[in-house]
């Protein structure tokens, strides 16, 4: 146990994992502070799950070291298991058992007494909104209910560190929101959360700090805002009336920021001032007598960050790629 492993509930040094000749994780360093929600963002097959499996003692590293809750994940695996909550990607839940039975099972596996297990289990089921469904077999649950039960199961022993591997993949927006709310609440209560996701919106919404992983390596790391700031200023796209002078419009926009290629019938430029500057731009265009039919302000997204560092786009990012500030605000 090192000093820094006490300050950092999750720490990794040059962590690697190969499967035969394929290197799934090629040496990553992590230092996650107490009380953080750390987002691990990357496309399918980037090495997210392999990393989580190493940190949760389910897979031995090929090289490098990692400590979770102050314990070495290899030499002190049992202590790690006692300290962490784990909700794995496919929410592997026995469909023949009821939610309540699974909670009891999980409690006993963590050495919690019967009376305590009942009280805590009931409270957790209530918390994730499954009280009414508690005595139904899990096979009858919806995807969202399963994930919520999965979350409850991972919390029965009140872990200080929680690993969520793609907690909302395949969920509808309402179910996703419910999980997000719960994760936020847990974090406010002091739980350190390590979250993997392939949804940039999820990382953006939840995580205080993000690492972007691609081909087994961390290619960018920082707060969502700092990562997006690196990509550059927001872009303003102005759709013009057919009668308008495109060149004149472009000249007006150049007073605000660097020009950006745009479709015919519209002009675009960087807007360092963001949304606050839009009024100014509109006024200037109006003064120049240019007729505008539409305005769109694009803030850089984490997908843009991913694009900048890898040259590729995140899967499923297309739908959210051009979302403005308003749409991204918490519902």
């Amino acid at each position, binding site marked *: 146990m090192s000093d820094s492993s006490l300050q950092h509930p999750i720490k990794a040094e040059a962590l690697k994992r190969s499967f035969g000749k394929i290197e799934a994780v090629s040496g990553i360093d992590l230092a996650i502070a107490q009380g953080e929600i750390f987002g691990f963002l990357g496309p399918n097959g980037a090495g997210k799950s392999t990393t989580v499996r190493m940190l949760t003692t*389910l897979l*031995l590293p090929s090289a490098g070291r990692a400590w979770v809750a102050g314990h070495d994940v290899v030499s002190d695996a*049992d202590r790690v298991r006692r300290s962490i909550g784990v909700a794995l990607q496919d929410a592997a839940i*026995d469909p*023949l058992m009821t939610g309540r039975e699974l909670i009891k099972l999980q409690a006993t*596996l*963590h050495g919690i007494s019967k009376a305590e297990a009942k009280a805590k289990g009931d409270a957790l089921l209530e918390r994730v909104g499954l009280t009414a469904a508690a005595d139904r077999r899990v096979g009858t649950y919806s995807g969202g209910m399963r994930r919520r039960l999965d979350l409850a199961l991972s919390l029965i022993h009140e872990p200080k560190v929680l690993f969520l591997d793609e907690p909302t993949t395949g969920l509808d927006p309402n179910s996703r929101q419910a999980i997000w709310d719960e994760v936020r609440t847990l974090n406010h209560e002091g739980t350190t959360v390590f979250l993997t996701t392939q949804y940039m919106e999820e990382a953006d919404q939840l995580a205080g700090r993000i690492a972007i992983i691609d081909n087994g390596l961390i290619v960018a790391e920082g707060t969502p805002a700092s990562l997006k700031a690196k990509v550059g200023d927001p872009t303003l796209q102005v759709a013009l009336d057919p009668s308008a002078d495109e060149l004149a419009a472009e000249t007006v926009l150049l007073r605000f920021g660097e020009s950006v290629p745009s479709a015919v019938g519209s002009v675009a430029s960087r807007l360092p001032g963001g949304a606050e500057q839009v009024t100014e731009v509109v006024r200037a265009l109006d003064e120049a007598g240019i007729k505008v039919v539409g305005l769109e302000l694009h803030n850089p997204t984490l997908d843009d960050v991913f694009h900048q560092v890898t040259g590729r786009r995140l899967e499923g990012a297309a739908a959210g790629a051009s979302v403005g500030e308003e749409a991204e605000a918490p519902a």
Partner: protein
Amino acid sequence: MSSVAAHYALLSKRSLVNTIRQPIAIIPSLMFPLIFLALNSAALAESINLPGFPAVDSFLQFMIATTIIQGGLFGSIAAGADMATDIEGGFFDRLIATPVSRTSILVGRVAGAFTLAFFQAFLFFGIAMLFGLTVDGGFLGMLGVALISATAGAGFASFSVAIGIKSGSAEVVQGSFPLIFTLMFLSSAFFPRTLMSGWFQDAATINPLSHMIESARSLVISGWDVAEFLYGLSIAAGLLVIGIVISLLALRARLADKA
């Protein structure tokens, strides 16, 4: 240690619940042995008069021990198949991500098979009694048959769990079903060894199943005999020990890549 005991009890119970909640999965281990019993009792009813056939009231009395052990054996497949399903579905990972005692994962399955086979024995006795079965060994004899059958079932369950852990595929486990059939046919399950000849008799003599069945059978047709009971039980227990060792090795191999 008490937490380890709690894990054993818990996972055994889950294993039982697992089986009971899949009624379709129990049908083969309940129905097939009964169908065999009914068919053979009708077809071979007169064979009990052959010279050299053990002294029995009826072919039903001769065969009931076979039916019970057969039920235990068929049921054992479910233990391995469920184990494999846990691996396929990821429930296995959920278990080992907790501080659960590793051996309780497989012991739970085997203990579940034991319990199921034990009670199944009394169910079969009860059904056969409706058709006129008498057990010369009385209740003690029935208990003895149930214990031999349950131990044999647990033994086969441990082999099937080993296959389940190794393959991680329920289909592969179910593929071992014909193997059990073959073992049964190459034994004294349906006919006394004294009336067999040649290589078939040799095969049936080597087959440990013959000895377990004959031991259990004698408790039904000749009365309670401690030595007979212990003979059958020890062979079943031997199988169980070997099976547990093999499944522990399989488990260790599967966990080798994990911390």
